[in-house]
């Protein structure tokens, strides 16, 4: 899934239909739209309420051709609808092409029409802050795919909306139906059991010692790192979100949530290969990552190679060897990469050395490497480095981080602090 960056700051959202299509079957339309909202509220903490007001959070309209938002419709076929990401004004609004024949369910072989529920369910994902997903079976896949009347949100979409708004609590252990013999593989009808992983992270608790309770279907227990008891491998701010990498996993943190002292515990990490495709299948860690200041593309360092991504789409022609960057052939890995706001230059660190990288030339500068001693107080062999949005530079090693004073060129006198408390909010 892909999060666009904006989200609603409340969990109860109102919706209204502002412009109807010609000859509308109003009850069918209202029913299908309500059903489309329901599949999102079923797995998240969101709730939706239909109102008769033009200032609802999500305004729904059926328009033809040019309709004043700069995104004209094209008549029957191709583009069916669009929606705006969360925000004021047009934010959250959903527009359907009024020239399509909107129907309930799938058309029969000798009829035509577009299933309103299928399209609305997808568009409401945008209204909630999700962008298109390249997972073909997901609801947020951009191409129209008819879905069953009883659709439940696919896993990819469920994790996406839960990342934004949290998961609705679901019973993980359910009483046996009367007369059923207890087994360890009792299957419940709760298709969203997988979503409990998102809420509870890797800490799925063992079943209670009660023979009347049996485990429901659940995914394999992931061996995910614990944010409150862990070092990190790499981190970077990518499109306004902080991505922290550890082992095969990464955390994706919203800076506003991080700065909120009342924020809940850190969300569980996600598997790197579920989002960043094309990295090695046997990847066990990312060495370093940074966002190129010239074009916002993302560079990953793994061993003696590097990969380039545009958003989460891998660029062709990668991986390439570190030597393409002018780094020595015997260099086996990069510890950390930092775009330093003090001068806008990119720095690559390994062991006791660092290089300054010229983004325009695509190579490290001539009189490097230099000794890390230049960065007074920063230990050799750092794990990661970052210029945070507070303007300060941070270096990470083991379970600690150092704040660096860019003007005095030395680390903060207070010494290293615990990563878990500042970056993950652990107590």
């Amino acid at each position, binding site marked *: 899934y892909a999060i666009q960056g904006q989200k609603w700051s409340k969990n109860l959202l109102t919706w209204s239909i502002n412009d109807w299509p010609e000859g509308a079957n109003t009850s069918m339309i209202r029913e299908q739209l309500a059903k489309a909202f329901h599949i999102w509220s079923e797995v998240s903490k969101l709730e939706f309420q239909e109102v008769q007001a033009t200032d609802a959070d999500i305004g729904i309209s059926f328009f033809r051709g040019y309709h004043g938002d700069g995104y004209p419709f094209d008549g029957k076929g191709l583009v069916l609808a*669009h929606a705006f990401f969360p925000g004021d004004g047009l934010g959250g609004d959903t527009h359907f092409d009024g020239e399509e024949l909107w129907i309930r369910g799938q058309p029969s072989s000798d009829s035509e029409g577009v299933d309103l529920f299928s399209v609305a369910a997808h568009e409401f994902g945008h209204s909630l802050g999700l962008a298109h997903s*390249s997972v073909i079976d997901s609801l947020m896949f*951009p191409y129209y795919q008819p879905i069953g009347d009883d659709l439940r949100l696919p896993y990819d979409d469920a994790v996406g909306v839960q990342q934004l708004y949290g998961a609705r609590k679901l019973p993980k252990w359910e009483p046996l139906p009367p007369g059923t013999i207890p087994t360890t593989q009792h299957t419940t009808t709760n298709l969203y059991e997988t979503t409990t992983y998102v809420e509870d992270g890797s800490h799925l608790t063992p079943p209670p010692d009660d023979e009347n309770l049996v485990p429901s279907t659940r995914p394999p227990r992931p061996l995910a790192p614990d944010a409150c008891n862990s070092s990190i491998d790499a981190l970077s701010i990518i*499109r306004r979100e902080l991505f922290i990498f550890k082992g095969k996993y990464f955390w994706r943190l919203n800076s506003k949530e991080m700065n909120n002292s009342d924020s809940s515990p850190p969300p569980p990490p996600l598997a790197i290969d579920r989002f960043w495709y094309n990295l090695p299948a046997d990847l066990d860690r990312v060495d370093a990552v940074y966002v190129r200041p010239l074009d916002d593309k993302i560079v990953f360092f793994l061993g003696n190679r590097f990969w380039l991504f545009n958003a989460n789409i891998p660029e062709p022609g990668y991986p390439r060897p570190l030597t393409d960057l002018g780094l020595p052939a015997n260099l086996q890995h990069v510890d950390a990469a930092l775009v330093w706001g003090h001068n806008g230059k990119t720095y690559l660190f390994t062991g006791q050395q660092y290089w300054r990288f010229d983004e325009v030339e695509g190579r490290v500068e001539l009189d490097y490497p230099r000794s890390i001693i230049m960065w007074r107080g920063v230990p050799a062999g750092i794990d990661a480095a970052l210029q945070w949005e507070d303007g300060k530079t941070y270096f990470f090693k083991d379970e600690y981080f150092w704040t660096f004073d860019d003007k005095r060129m030395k680390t903060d006198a207070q010494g290293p602090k615990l990563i878990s408390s500042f970056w993950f909010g652990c107590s």
Partner: protein
Amino acid sequence: HPVTPNISLRTDVDAVVFLSKFGYLPQTDLASRELRNETQLRDAIRQMQRFAGIKETGELDEGTIALMKRRRCGMPDLIGSSERIKR
């Protein structure tokens, strides 16, 4: 210098419009299509094919054109380009 791409874009689908509209080519270049070079177009097509899960040929082959004709959502596919729509 302007470069006329060798890649055939003369199909019944306007591939450049499609790629621009859905975030694979910068929209600002719509008025100067001839300035695109072949590599840029092939990369955009390949990226679009990868996103849709079809064979990455970098060509406007039958499967790609069929995909471009499929009914779909009007929002762009890439995160960066999707940010443009809100403005």
